């Protein structure tokens, strides 16, 4: 994607301005060494087992020293240059890599700060170029001073700002499109999370996963904890009661111990939900900039990400069966860029009412279908896969029970549960076709609505198989740039003629501009 044409000018003239990463980066390297020594543990253990304990400390020291020297060399051999219309990065200790990124090709600059980086006043800078593919391949500066990072972003933004008026020529048609598509000229706040909102969101974020971790940890460290108390163990609650002379009463009312355990379970579930929400979304701000949506958030790790509006491919509304009743929704945007290393799509509204989400959708020129919109349902046969799974689980359970393993009952129960959930959820698959986009709804426990503009669709599959074909049904699968947490976008099991008509209509759309 990086073209050579813009990379020509005056490298020699700018030669003296080579910069290094912030020296504090080395301090960060030391911190990063911590987890890496884990790799070294087996070797240490081997030395220890061999009875040569005296060598353990020197070996560890040598390892740390070598790692530090390597980090130092890497730092020494990494330099970058901010030219007038490009950034040049040279890296590599032995194999040198020379990379030129023209400012024109930088969609935006993301800034990320971890806890330690914040203490040191440095930030990791990522350059978002048009190139799809692996995040590992993206150019990054890890790390430079925060003020330098912000200055760099301003420089690049200003450069792009210059090119917009000049770009009315067809040679850079993409810029011209953009100028007309995004009339916004100054930064506007679109959405923010107040502490109160964070608290509510956290309560809905009740997390059983964290609970499992805490439970496992309690089991594991039962003997190590300063207090000998496992909240999941009703016996411990008896002990507690005994200590306060409540023993007699508790024995008479055994259920109280159970309630105690349950209450603490609930408490941990809610507390971890709130904690996770606060850590991730503290100080959440979504602003509209001339060509991008910019999101800053995070308590410990603070991130500052810009999502170019033009590159948004689809919007996904996620809610829950309970939060839906209180009109709480989450908005994610799918684009070519990935959100950090983990997330495939960008969460732009973590927790908000539809009335707050609509303006955000408006910025990316997507309109939510109104209440009067008729939705068409997928055929119930989509439950077949889940039912087959349920059948397998039940069959396995039955065989286990026949072989005298009473735990097989779990399989049968799970099979019945899966079947019930699948049959019930199958009713919630529906879709509707709007003039320039298709909306797909699915799920009951966690309803998801995908708003997919026709123009984002790169290819369409029409699939049928030995179950759908006799019923005159087909499944449409859309190829859309960028990944989403949902995997692929599809409308399952709709009448063949409808599917073909829809496919024709979608493919007739012009590309998204």
């Amino acid at each position, binding site marked *: 994607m990086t073209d050579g044409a813009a990379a020509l000018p005056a490298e020699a003239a700018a030669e003296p301005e080579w910069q290094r990463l912030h020296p504090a980066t080395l301090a960060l390297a030391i911190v990063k060494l911590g987890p890496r020594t884990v790799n070294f543990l087996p070797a240490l253990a081997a030395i220890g087992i061999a009875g040569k304990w005296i060598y353990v400390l020197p070996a560890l020291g040598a390892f740390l020293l070598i790692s530090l020297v390597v980090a130092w060399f890497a730092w020494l051999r990494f330099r970058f240059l901010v030219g007038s219309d490009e950034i040049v990065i040279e890296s590599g200790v032995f194999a040198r890599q020379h990379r030129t990124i023209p400012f024109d*090709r930088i*969609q935006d600059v993301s800034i990320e700060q971890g806890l330690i980086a914040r203490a040191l006043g440095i930030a990791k800078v990522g350059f978002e170029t*048009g190139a*799809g593919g692996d995040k590992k391949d993206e150019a990054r500066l890890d790390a430079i001073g925060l003020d330098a990072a912000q200055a760099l972003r301003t420089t690049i933004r200003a450069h792009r700002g210059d090119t917009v008026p000049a770009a009315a020529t067809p040679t850079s048609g*993409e810029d011209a499109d953009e100028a007309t598509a995004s009339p916004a000229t100054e930064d506007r706040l679109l959405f923010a999370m107040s502490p109160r909102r964070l608290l509510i969101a956290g309560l809905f974020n009740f997390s059983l996963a964290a609970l499992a971790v805490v439970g496992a940890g309690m089991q594991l460290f039962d003997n190590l904890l300063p207090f000998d108390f496992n909240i999941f163990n009703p016996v411990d609650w008896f002990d507690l009661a005994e200590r306060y002379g409540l023993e007699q009463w508790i024995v008479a009312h055994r259920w109280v111990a159970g309630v105690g355990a349950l209450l603490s379970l609930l408490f941990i579930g809610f507390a971890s939900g709130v904690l996770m929400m606060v850590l991730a979304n503290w100080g959440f701000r979504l602003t509209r900039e001339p060509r991008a949506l910019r999101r800053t958030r995070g308590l410990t790790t603070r991130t500052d990400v810009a999502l*170019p509006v*033009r*590159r948004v491919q689809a919007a996904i509304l996620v809610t829950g069966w309970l939060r839906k009743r209180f009109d709480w929704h989450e908005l994610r945007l799918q684009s*070519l860029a990935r959100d950090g290393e983990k997330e495939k799509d960008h969460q732009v509204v973590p927790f908000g009412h539809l009335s707050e989400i609509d303006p955000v959708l408006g910025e990316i020129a997507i309109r939510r279908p109104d209440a009067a919109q008729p939705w068409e349902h997928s055929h119930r046969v989509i439950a077949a896969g889940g039912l087959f799974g349920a059948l397998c689980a039940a069959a396995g359970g039955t065989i286990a029970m026949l072989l005298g393993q009473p735990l097989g009952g779990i399989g049968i129960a799970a099979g019945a549960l899966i079947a019930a959930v699948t049959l019930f959820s199958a009713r919630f698959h529906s879709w509707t076709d709007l003039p320039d986009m298709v909306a797909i709804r699915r799920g009951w426990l966690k309803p998801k609505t995908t708003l997919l503009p026709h123009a984002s*669709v*790169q*290819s*369409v*599959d*029409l*699939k*049928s*198989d*030995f179950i759908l*074909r006799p019923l*005159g049904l087909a499944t449409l*699968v*859309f*190829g*859309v*740039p*960028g*990944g989403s947490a949902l995997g*692929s*976008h599809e409308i399952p099991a709709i009448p*063949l*003629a409808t599917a*073909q008509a829809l*496919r*024709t209509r979608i*493919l007739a759309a012009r*590309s*998204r*501009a």
Partner: protein
Amino acid sequence: MTETVAVHPVDPFDAHALNAAEGLDSVDPAFSHVLRITTLFNMLPIAIGATVLDVMVVREVGGPYGLLSVLAWLLGVIAVVTFPARRAQRWGFKIGEGQLRVARGWLFRTDTIVPFVRVQHIDVGQGPVERWFGLSHLVVHTSGTHNSTVTLPGLRADLAAAMRETIRRHIQTDFA
């Protein structure tokens, strides 16, 4: 795309009828030979492995000696003789109206359409077996995560090259 679809059953064993009903062209008949030879190369090691296992293990432990070998070779022969021709017949394609349409499979049939304007780049490839029969395969890359590559095998080399040229003329990127 304007064809009326027979909701009802095209004879699954008459693949030409299948493609004709969906308005598709069939791939070159020689493609079945390519598939056959590829299948042969896949099945041969399995069959030989089964025989070795039979001789080395089953005979030693006194199991039903010979059963495994016969079964493996029989299945291998069936796979090589019968299926490739059908698999080849069930590939269909249509190029034109600004889009490429590729259909494959029967039990699980997938019918993909890629508009030319959405194509990022195109490959024409030729494996050693394909070369024997003068065939090529066309690979179309899109920027979609699903269907990032669409492969159409079993094209005569000159046809594949011509298709590439047709598509190439339409390629335009709309991403910055």
